[in-house]
């Protein structure tokens, strides 16, 4: 079984939003660190969906219930309300149809937990302003022609989408690159400027 290796800080923040003994689907679960944590420490029935086959094989070989699949095409096969939480961490910007994926998440789950790198961070804005080129940072580290992040958005953009589609933001926070909580929870405009990642807990209205 997987050892007690330290979980990514942003995953720890996500885990903090999940109630014990609930049903969780982690989309883009990678090696399954989050679902392993949720099962072991919170007694959750946690499962994963991951697009990369080698990673899936690794996760299953660690005894974790993970299936190979794609957020864009596989969520449709789950029934309504199958999960209490559906998690999508650092993946929304890479899917083909983010709005549809979000809709599916809140169809099959009562809650959605979404994290994404914030394209509104001040370093990106400054780079764009002064160089006139697509910004490059640790979070946004690949050239525009090869980045998998085809749908970047800002924290404010995400608030707007939630409002447009009628999702209630139960909880939100901005975090720095390592995932540590940043202190701008009351002011979205500041969070949008200084937060490197946005993390949202949503439910349907």
């Amino acid at each position, binding site marked *: 079984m997987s050892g007690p290796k330290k979980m990514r800080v942003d995953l720890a923040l996500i885990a903090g939003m999940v109630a014990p003994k609930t049903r969780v689907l982690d989309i883009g679960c990678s090696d399954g660190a989050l679902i392993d944590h949720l099962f072991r420490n919170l007694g959750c029935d946690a499962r994963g969906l991951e697009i990369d086959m080698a990673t899936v094989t690794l996760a*299953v070989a660690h005894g974790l*219930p993970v299936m190979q699949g794609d957020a864009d095409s596989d969520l449709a096969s789950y029934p309504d309300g199958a999960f209490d939480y559906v998690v999508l961490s650092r993946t929304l910007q890479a899917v083909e149809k983010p709005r549809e994926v979000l809709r599916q998440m809140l169809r099959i789950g009562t809650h959605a937990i979404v994290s994404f790198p914030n394209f509104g961070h001040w370093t990106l804005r400054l780079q764009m302003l002064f160089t006139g080129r697509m910004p490059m940072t640790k979070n946004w580290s690949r050239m525009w022609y090869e980045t998998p992040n085809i749908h970047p958005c800002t924290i404010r953009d995400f608030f707007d989408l939630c409002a447009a589609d009628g999702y209630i933001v139960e909880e939100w926070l901005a975090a720095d690159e390592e995932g540590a909580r940043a202190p701008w929870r009351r002011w979205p405009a500041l969070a949008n400027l200084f937060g490197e990642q946005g993390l949202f807990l949503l439910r349907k209205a």
Partner: protein
Amino acid sequence: MDQTTARSETQHQSVTFAEGLTLDCGRHLGSLTIAYRTYGKLNAAKSNAILICHALTGDQYVAETNPETGKPGWWEQVVGPGRPVDTEKFFVICTNVLGGCMGTTGPRSQHDEHAGQPWGTDFPPVTINDMVRAQKRFIDHLEIGRLFAVVGGSMGGMQVLAWAALYPGQVFAAVPVAAAAYHSAQNIAFHEIGRQAIAADPDFWAGRYWEHGVTPARGLAVARMTAHITYVSEAALTRKFGRKLQDTARISALGDRFEVESYLQYQGSSFVRRFDANSYLTITRAMDLFDLSADYGGVLPSAFAGTKTRFLLVSFDSDWLFPTEQSRAIARALNHVAANVSFVEIKSDKGHDAFLLDEPDFHRTLRGFLAGCAEHAGLS
């Protein structure tokens, strides 16, 4: 009730159920003999039993030398002490399928109505569900209330799916490998070539070959050769043989043979020594008839409604007989009922046969899945 029956020259460990078995076709087998092998120890709670389901031409000799062929067990890389299905932790059971020719009731068994004669082609058609009901009778006989896992590849995977659908409460974990929820038109077509080859052999004698002291060896060998091509990938055949010639460097006469030809002929001839033609007809037909969703109004997810069983589906990317899409369709059907599913496609160029061969990624996956399930079942 336990006994050792003489069938051909080999003695197979078996148990006979005098009440017989009623089949899907409506007919009743007067008595049911199940030939089996077990490995490892059943724990006091009887909670560590794993049933292995064998494929079309497999048998109960999973993890030991096969007494008929003298060759290693067909899944020794997967089942045994320290193996992915670890016989030091689990009690492993394998039975010869209904309709088989290794000791379980089949076309070579004694006819219900004609004493002293085998069933031959009179043997009633059986289904995958019938095979599973026969296995269930045996598991009940062992007084095992719930199997920790049912594992099998190809036709064995069909049995795993049937187990999960028929007895969901009695299967904690299910592992269908290189399997499908139905036999495709292409699968049926290849089987039909094999059956026609057997029927066309003059030694077939309309299925009563034993009366003439012969077996339809040529027909059965052709059936096996055709089937064998479907078990391997083009890449694997190329890697193994390419266009290499037997005994010569280049074609000098039309009589020269390619290595792949003699390989196939060897596959065919070694098969006829161990397999009964009427069994081959019976079991290929059972596979062709398999369509899990047909029993559930054509809706595959309904076969698994409310299931608590944990599933692992495994496919191989070069398998064109039971391609990945078939496993993915099962995974999606299981998603429909919010079942607990793991699903991986293993990279291999060995085709359908990969499930029987040395595939470390597959073996790691299976081992890890069983370990995870053992934890959830409170076994470890």
